[in-house]
């Protein structure tokens, strides 16, 4: 059990810099998720923590110890790989016992540790099998079991569920959550799937192009995104963005004129921007409402596509000033046809305003 401190971690391959100074403090027992699009450096950061990649600059502490120059085996970490990376020539038992065998543990000790891990993961009947006789989900359990056996201070997961099919992924997600509750170890989990991030994490670290965009609890990121990137990344379907112009701002409210000419209000403090500044107005599909009368804080759009999921329906609207379709969530039985014009209500306490650099204006609710 240990916390981690990352101080200005940089990583470069030759001239290409992939991590641009990562500062982060991870508490003991926390479940931290690194999330970001592919190529954002999240896996590199995880591998640097594991010791599989050298850190180019900065300092890494696990517990109280500076581990920059320690080999992976001395860092007290265990890692679960995306591809499982089981030892194909060893049985499940041998796979899980490998680290203890290397450490020179006694047979009784090893067997006890393996049995305990197998019990937690419910893979006891599989112990004598080879990995190739296992299904994808079982293999991933063995890979996790191999990590548990080591009793590491820190668990590292590198997209462990992305090779599983959708239903198994949901099941394993729940089990990982339970596992964290049982073991209470520090866990660092890398994923590109924001749903996994939202459901598993105590805190999420959103990364983009080798930089931390925002760190915070799932709901904090959802309700108070720091910038356009986080706002667009967290939440599904993603937040709608419409470009516009700031008309007026006081400490409680900002008024924005959208490209279509509609004037909308958002409960944000945009006083640091001058009236007339170009801004991006954002609202999530689930917060925009339809079935409203035209009036204050509304805008009109033409339906392009209707997606019916049963319990909900998504309307994809064509709206001036929005590069992609403006998505609105409606109840499942809501009737509207493609080509119709509908009016969308924009509740001011659920709207966001971003400046030209993509930074969010602080919300005032």
């Amino acid at each position, binding site marked *: 059990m240990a916390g981690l401190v990352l101080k200005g971690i940089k990583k470069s391959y030759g001239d290409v810099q992939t991590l641009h100074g990562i500062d982060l403090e991870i508490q003991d027992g926390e479940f931290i998720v690194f999330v970001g699009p592919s190529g954002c450096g999240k896996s590199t950061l995880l591998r640097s923590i*594991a*010791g*599989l990649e050298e850190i180019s600059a900065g300092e890494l502490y696990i517990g109280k110890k500076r581990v920059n120059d320690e*080999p*992976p*085996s001395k860092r007290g*970490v*265990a*890692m679960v*790989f*995306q*591809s*499982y*990376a*089981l*030892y*194909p*020539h060893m049985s499940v038992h041998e796979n899980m016992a*490998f*680290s203890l065998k*290397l*450490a020179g543990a006694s047979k009784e000790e090893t067997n006890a540790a393996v049995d305990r891990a197998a019990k937690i993961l419910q893979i006891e009947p599989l112990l004598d099998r*080879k*990995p*190739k*006789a*296992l299904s*994808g989900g079982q*293999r991933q359990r063995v*890979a996790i079991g*191999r990590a548990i056996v*080591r009793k590491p201070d820190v668990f590292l997961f590198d997209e462990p569920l992305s*090779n599983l099919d959708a239903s198994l992924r949901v099941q394993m997600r729940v089990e990982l959550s339970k596992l964290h509750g049982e073991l209470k170890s520090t866990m660092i989990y890398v994923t590109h799937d924001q749903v996994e991030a939202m459901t598993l994490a105590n805190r999420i670290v959103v990364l983009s192009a080798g930089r931390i965009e925002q760190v915070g609890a799932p709901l904090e990121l959802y309700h108070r995104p720091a910038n356009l990137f986080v706002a667009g990344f967290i939440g599904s379907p993603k937040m709608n963005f419409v470009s516009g112009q700031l008309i007026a701002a006081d400490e409680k409210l900002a008024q924005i004129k959208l490209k279509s000419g509609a004037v909308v209000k958002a409960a944000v403090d945009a006083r640091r921007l001058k009236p007339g500044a170009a801004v991006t107005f954002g609202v999530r599909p689930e917060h925009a409402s339809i079935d409203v009368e035209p009036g204050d804080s509304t805008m009109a759009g033409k339906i392009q596509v209707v997606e019916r999921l049963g319990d909900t329906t998504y309307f994809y609207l064509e709206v001036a000033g929005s590069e992609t379709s403006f998505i609105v969530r409606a109840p499942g039985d809501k009737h509207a046809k493609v080509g119709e014009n509908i009016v969308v209500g924009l509740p001011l306490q659920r709207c966001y305003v971003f400046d030209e650099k993509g930074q969010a204006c602080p919300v005032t609710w």
Partner: protein
Amino acid sequence: MAIVLDKSHRWRVVAAHLGLIAFISLCMFPFLMILSISLRPGNFAVGSLIPDQISFEHWKLALGISYQAEDGSLVTPPFPVLLWLWNSIKVALISAFIAVLLSTTAAYAFARMKFRGKKHWMTALLLMQMFPTVLALIAIFSIFDYLGSYVKVLGVDSHWALILAYAGGIALHVWTIKGYYDTIPVEIEEAAVVDGATHWQAFKYVLLPMAKPILMVVFLLAFIGAIIEYPVASVLLHQEANLTLAVGSKLFLYEQKYLWGDFAAAAILSGMPITLVFVLSQRWMVGGLTAGGVKG
């Protein structure tokens, strides 16, 4: 086989089979010819493929047994063929073993480690081996002649000298094994390293067991290469008792008299160890050793 076939398909199958049979006959003919010569009385290179009369005189000589000739005289084996065979097997086994040992470790370095000029070293290795060994014969001879004056066991006319010379020819094996290592996902070894393994332990416990098939292939290639090698062995080995079978068999063919029959028997004998090693090694040459390790 539920694919719907064209009507002309049958004739194409027949034609393909005929072609294959003709090709196999072409491949088999030299072997059958040598077998026939070794079983034919007298030493004639030409004659019918199926001998009119079968005689084991050449085989007796090859196996070191004397026989009574038709005129009543006792014919004793002219050369120690079985000893040569043993020499060949000994040299081939040891040098193949050393070749595997050196090339697996070298290939590991080339496949997994980062060092300056890696690519160029790989190419250089291959280029150097592209020159025929014959071109280096004088060099090889003088090197071992010189070595012999300091280390007796590595001098000319010593099997260890020959083994050392053969062990130098591993560049191709390094390439072969490196190619195989490259297909094994590196995550598996990374997992071992996180599990607490050193580079050496990851290599020994994780990579090597998965690479068994290619190691057997390389062992077999090195073994065959050593058994059939002639030029280097002929330069380094002189005394009759030291010769390998490939070099020794040549003694059956001297200018005045070509003992084709005895030569044929010895030639077939030299194929035996290769066949045996091949059959034995086949059980390790199986695919799918890495199956299940990573998501395919």
